[in-house]
């Protein structure tokens, strides 16, 4: 496989804490790669190490076959879409998009700007100031001014978190579509598992400065390697130390057939969500769990004594 970006044993230690601890990672050319983890897990520090705003304490960063960890940000062919977009408030949309091109001294600046603004659907807004743009438009300017420089890797630092929730899903689809069209490698930092699962070709799940697992969204969700990965992506029921996803957890009044694992429980809450019903129950031992059952199945209500069961094949097991 052709890796465009490679981290080799990268660590970043700050006086107060160790943000990144011996991370090795490969990002394939043209991929939509996500760094997923809770806040404070080191994913933004990773991005800043790649962009050049931080230098690693140990380890190497390689981009397109060249070592870059000693280069200043302005000499690295990666560009960043900042969380707050960081558009230059004193420059127009055109001025923002031209900023990097002018430094490069590229030919045909106008044609480049026109084309990239068309790609992000901002044609006609060239002379607007950033303060006169909507959140979605600002984000597209931030994308345009980075993409116009044709970076080897585009770094995106939670670019959807500054948007209204109802806009987020729409922009998410647009972002994926844009990445496919321009073919640039995206390294996308997020704490939102749904974003990571729906957008990415590959995901690296980070926790406390280390990468816990790298894989496709399906691998990460269906075969989590650690308890942290299992509980960070989606919900999980812990029953006697065994993990079972809510959609694999069944509930019935009758005793289920043989060949499945079963426990007795009492229903505590039912929530009808349209396509599924969330049933919360409490096991005899006191552990709470959630089951996602189809709405057309037999109805249960709070206080009912039920059997909770699951197929052994659906259990998630982890090495201690």
């Amino acid at each position, binding site marked *: 496989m052709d890796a465009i970006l490679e981290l080799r044993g990268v660590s970043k230690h700050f006086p107060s804490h160790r943000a990144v601890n011996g991370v090795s990672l490969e990002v394939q050319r043209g991929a939509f790669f996500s760094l997923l983890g809770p806040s404070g897990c080191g994913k933004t520090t990773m991005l800043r190490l790649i*962009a*050049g*705003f931080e230098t690693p304490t140990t380890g190497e960063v390689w981009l397109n076959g060249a070592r870059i960890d000693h280069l*200043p*940000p*302005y*000499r690295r062919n*990666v*560009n*960043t879409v*900042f969380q*707050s977009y*960081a*558009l*230059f*408030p*004193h420059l127009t949309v055109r001025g923002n998009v031209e*900023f*990097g091109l002018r*430094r*490069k001294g590229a030919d045909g600046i106008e044609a480049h700007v026109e084309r990239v603004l068309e790609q992000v659907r901002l044609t006609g807004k060239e002379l607007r100031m950033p303060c006169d743009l909507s959140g979605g438009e600002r984000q597209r300017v931030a994308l345009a*001014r*980075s993409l116009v*420089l044709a970076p080897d890797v585009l770094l995106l630092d939670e670019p959807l978190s500054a948007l209204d929730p109802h806009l987020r899903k729409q922009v998410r689809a647009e972002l994926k579509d844009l990445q496919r069209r321009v073919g640039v490698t995206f390294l996308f930092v997020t704490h939102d598992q749904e974003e990571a699962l729906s957008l990415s070709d590959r995901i690296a799940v980070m926790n406390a400065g280390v990468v816990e697992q790298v894989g496709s969204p399906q691998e990460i969700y269906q075969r989590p390697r650690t308890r942290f990965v299992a509980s960070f992506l989606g919900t999980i029921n812990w029953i006697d130390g065994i993990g079972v996803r809510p959609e694999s957890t069944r509930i019935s009044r009758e005793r289920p057939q043989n060949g499945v694992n079963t426990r007795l429980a009492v229903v505590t809450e039912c929530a009808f969500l349209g396509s599924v019903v969330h049933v919360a129950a409490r096991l005899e031992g006191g552990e709470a769990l959630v089951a996602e059952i189809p709405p057309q199945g037999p109805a249960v209500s709070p206080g009912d004594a039920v059997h909770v069961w699951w197929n052994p094949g659906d259990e998630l097991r982890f090495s201690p």
Partner: protein
Amino acid sequence: MKPLRSLFLAPAAALMIVTIAVPLAIICFYSLLTRGAYGGVERPWTTENYRLLFDPLYGAIFLRSFWIAAVATALCLVLGFPLALFIARSGSRKNLYLSLVILPFWTSFLIRTYAWMFLLRDTGLINTGLQAAGLIHTPLPMLYNDGAVILGLVYGYLPFTVLPLYATLERLDKSLLEAAADLGSPPWNTLFRVMLPLCAPGIRAGAILVFVPCLGTYLTSDLLGGSKTILIGNLVQNQFTAARDWPFGAAASLTLMAVAMALLFAVRRQGEELL
């Protein structure tokens, strides 16, 4: 609410009227009269005092005052910017450095200007030191010239550029500088293309705060410039003391004020507060 607001505003308004509007009206009034034989003013009414200001002699004084104020302002900005940037980036020591910047205000400006005389004069610390070290044989002419006046002004008014520059630099979003670097801009390019444009309000405020008082200065030019450096401030002072030409002094000071106000409005940007 309204009557209560007027009640609280009244003392300040009264003070402004008594201490600013009334004296201004008196100056305006005097500037249109004829000088008295022993000071004071007499009739008839005249505009001669204003016409006299167009005399090349006084024109030169005005130009020289503008030149010296402009050079002092430019130097204050050039010296103040790096200092303000340094303070804005020194984290927990910010407040210590800021108090050091305003520390000189604890001593009278007059005394500090005299201190410069002791340093700069022929038998001053610098000249005697250099002579003792054998570096020079005759004292360097450091006092009683335009350079000494500019030095005194820059020394005195530097804090007035550092403070507003610090205020804008401190608020400056650091991610904008990172974004510039990220887009391929080396530090010096970022300084001119991003940092300075975004600091324009602080630069304007600092420039006004230095330029206006420098334009009207008379103490610094009197003590450090000697008789060779006559500025508008000295001209006005002279008219009310030695020359005993109150109407001309009033006309000169009003003209200075008008020019300063015009400049203030010229550098003010639409929708921006002055300070």
